[in-house]
């Protein structure tokens, strides 16, 4: 499967979500001078070069110093600015974790933390540059919204809602161009999953850049096997849309979760913990990066390796619907 040169298979192709982030932030900055981008030698990868040229007084550069980045963003926010701290997700969510925990969430300074080139976007650069721990680390911290938008629409909405939020937000963005998913549904709200397509045989709950391969698998399942699959973009990892989870589980159909994150502590475990404590017995499988020395290569190669792909999810979907319930 070649996700890199894909056409979108009948979907309109968009830009990389992190490009849409910076375009939206520029629009907001034009009408709100309290918006400040804070960068750590990351304005190139954060697509903020043009932002910096247009709004030189609305960008603060701290150099390669992610802990300082988050602390400074907390201070700016407590002084009445709307700070967006932008840095690769791997460093932002690991190096600066204590600043996030103490200075942003515990002290309730509603900074927006923008983790760019997230997951395995920097696939060939190795574990130092992967963020496969960020959902887990931040889920274990109180008072933060964790959001991983799937497409350009969700990203633009998420940036606007983050700017208006009085709560800290961690936004996780990738650098691959994404197609628009379900353009008919123009609603987006933190904490409310978006249904991308509906079907009564199987459910795939995905987030971020894994929603698209889930959609491709669902399409193929229906076209080749008549298996009708619901695909959900669970863009908000926390707070989780538990109402939607209950509705999805209610008819007993098998559930697959998929995420660009280690299986430990991510979206899948969050869904499982909620559902199984309420007595649901749906067959359930978590797809993500296993707890092992992560293979390297391009994002698409790593996705393929771990079954986060049209083919992998198609095969797993077939296995789940064919197996008679025990």
């Amino acid at each position, binding site marked *: 499967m070649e996700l890199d040169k894909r056409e979108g298979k009948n979907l309109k192709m968009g830009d990389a979500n992190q490009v849409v982030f910076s375009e939206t932030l520029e629009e907001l900055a034009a009408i709100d001078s309290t918006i400040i981008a804070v*960068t750590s*030698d*990351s*304005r*190139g*990868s954060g697509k903020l070069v043009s932002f910096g040229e247009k709004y030189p007084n609305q960008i603060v*550069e*701290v*150099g*390669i*110093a992610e*802990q*300082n980045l988050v602390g400074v963003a907390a201070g700016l926010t407590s002084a009445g600015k709307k700070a967006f701290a932008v840095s690769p997700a*791997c*460093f932002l969510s*690991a*190096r600066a974790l204590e600043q996030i925990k103490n200075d942003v969430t515990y002290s309730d300074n509603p900074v927006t933390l923008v983790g760019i080139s997230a997951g395995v976007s*920097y696939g*060939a*650069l*190795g*574990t*130092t*540059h992967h963020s496969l721990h960020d959902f887990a680390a931040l889920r274990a911290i109180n008072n933060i919204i964790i959001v991983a938008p799937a497409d350009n629409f969700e990203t633009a909405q998420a940036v606007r809602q983050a700017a208006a939020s009085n709560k800290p937000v961690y936004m996780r963005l990738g650098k691959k161009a994404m197609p628009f998913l379900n353009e008919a549904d123009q609603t987006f709200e933190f904490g409310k999953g978006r249904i991308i397509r509906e079907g009564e045989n199987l459910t795939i709950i995905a987030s971020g850049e894994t929603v698209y391969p889930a959609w491709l698998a669902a399409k193929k399942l229906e076209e080749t096997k008549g298996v009708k699959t619901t695909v959900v973009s669970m863009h908000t990892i926390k707070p989780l849309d538990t109402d939607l989870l209950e509705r999805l589980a209610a008819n007993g159909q098998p559930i697959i979760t998929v995420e660009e994150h280690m299986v430990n502590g991510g979206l899948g475990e969050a869904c499982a913990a909620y559902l199984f404590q309420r007595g649901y017995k749906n067959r359930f499988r978590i797809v993500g990066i296993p707890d092992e020395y992560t*293979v*390297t*290569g*391009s994002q698409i*190669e790593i996705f393929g*390796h771990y079954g986060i792909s049209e083919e992998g999810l198609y095969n797993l979907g077939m296995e789940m619907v064919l197996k008679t319930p025990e």
Partner: protein
Amino acid sequence: MTNQELRLKSVVLRKNILKYIYIAKAGHTGGSLSCIDILNVLYNKVLNVDPKDFKNPNRDRYIQSKGHCVEALFVTLADRGFFPESDLETLCAYQSHYIGHPTKKVHGVEQNTGALGHGLSICVGEAIAAKLDDKRHRVFTLLGDGELPEGSNWEAFLSASHYKLDNLYAILDNNKQQITGNNKEVMNTDSVRDKLQSFGWAVKEVDGHNLEQLEEALKNGPFEEGKPNFIIAHTIKGKGVSFMEGSLKWHHGVPTEEQYALAQSELNTAEALIH
């Protein structure tokens, strides 16, 4: 190895850096070219390391803190016989251990680096252990100048002088640039010499492309007994290829076919001049 042979090697290593970045279509070109003379001198004149006995506890340690310039390290290790150079044809490929940063899966690499601001603390630990065990080997790291603002470096600077680690050598690849621009404009770290001296380090400044100066500074230490050693190596990002020198876009720029041919021909000329 004669000085002429060493100078020739620097050119060949530069050609190899470009070759494997060109094949991989990825890599940190500018910073690899700025630090390659330092690595050449370290691995061919200074470090006591042996590919056949790499785990010898008495070996000198080299931990590359500016891990993104892994191409410089890989071509140097290949040249020293740690692994066949042709392995580097898989640089950054699916499932290859030759990834875009140093990892211990590659023979000759001491530590996994790539997130900036980690190497020096690990070296402090290595240097303390050497002192505790009464070992004579030395510990070296290579820092980027853009890397300096990471607070962990300053924590390590303090502890190195506190523990009087005169067996520790930190080399600054002072190419004055990082991704966004010049260090001066991104985050000013001027007067590094004064800063380090006030932190209790002995400091030397060298031309980071002058092999004799590098050898002289790195071979004969400590600079002052009881003090960790800091070497400010003044370098040029992209050094050796005219159109890459000092140009920001070559931080992780990959040459086109045409640019690659041009770069190789410039380096071939440089090589011929040394012969």
